[in-house]
């Protein structure tokens, strides 16, 4: 069980951090560059939406980011399961 949970959590965390950070960077760029309204979505699933009105900018992180993170975790867990069968122990460590 742990063999699947660890890669799932790491994959979810990795994709979540990157997805939310990318959305935030996009929102900052949109606000700084006077882009106007911005809506990034995949079909009905919103990733990030930026609205501007009277000098104020509001950013909405859509549910798509959380879904992307969960999907990243699932893919990572699946890949880990595939790799596990082929892995041999090493006598040293590299990072």
């Amino acid at each position: 069980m742990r063999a699947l949970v660890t890669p799932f959590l790491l994959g979810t965390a990795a994709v979540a951090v990157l997805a939310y950070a990318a959305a935030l960077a996009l929102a900052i760029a949109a606000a700084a560059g006077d882009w106007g309204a911005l809506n990034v979505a995949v079909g009905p699933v919103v990733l990030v939406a930026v609205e501007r009105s009277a000098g104020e900018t509001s950013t909405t992180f859509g549910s798509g980011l959380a879904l992307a993170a969960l999907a990243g975790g699932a893919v990572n867990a699946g890949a880990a399961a595939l790799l596990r069968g082929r892995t041999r122990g090493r006598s040293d460590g590299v990072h």
Partner: protein
Amino acid sequence: MIDARDRVCLPAGVRLTAAGLHDEVRGETLELNDTGRLVVTCADGRPLGEIAELTAAHFRVPGDVALADVGVFCLALNERFLLNVESRPGAALLRLLSSLARGLPLGALPAPPRRRARINTARASAAVASTAAALAWRALAVGALATVSAAALLAGVGAPGLGLPVLLGAGAALALVVHEGAHAAALRGVPCCLCLAGTAVFLLHRRLPGRRRGLVAVAGPLAAAAAGLVALAAAAAPGLAALGPAALVPLSHVLALTVAGRDGRAACGLS
């Protein structure tokens, strides 16, 4: 890619003992025959050609045979990070370009000599400082390459300028140092060395117990991502918006936590 004028020496942490060539980082000893022992004894910064001449005289073999054998032996030690090779300034680059021109049509890419540098893990601060010192040139090269690539890409999409490319390059260089520095800090008290093998950079150390191994593995990507988050927070301040895209470079290191990266595989117990 070693020639007779290259100088060879044992890296810090590798020494010749009565039993053979001992690697303090791996905790292993490589047994040597008489020829290997003579070559390693002479590997004190002398040119490979001089060592081959000594070997030829000692074992009474033709000079060209000795040079070929000593070259192959030194290359094998270098591939295991047990011997450093110092090329003349510019010679390594010329050889790399020449090998690239000859090998590329055959699909063979040249492998430049590997390099190993000592990391002081007595204290976390010393580990970070020695990693930064060992990585300085590599980080500079990564930063310059990222800057040039970003400048060309942005100019291609009609957004010329050097401000953002320089920030992206600085982000790439800093992220590399922070990433490896954090690994080294997490390895406090464990003998380790920084290895440069072509484009790859990694810290080599003995196998650690499960939990510690996981902590060391995640320390690098998390530290780089944390540096990216700090830069992203700063980007929200007026006039610093250009830091936003640059922050994504160190933040992208968090992907090393997945099994696509060496760190992620180590954290998941897959390597």
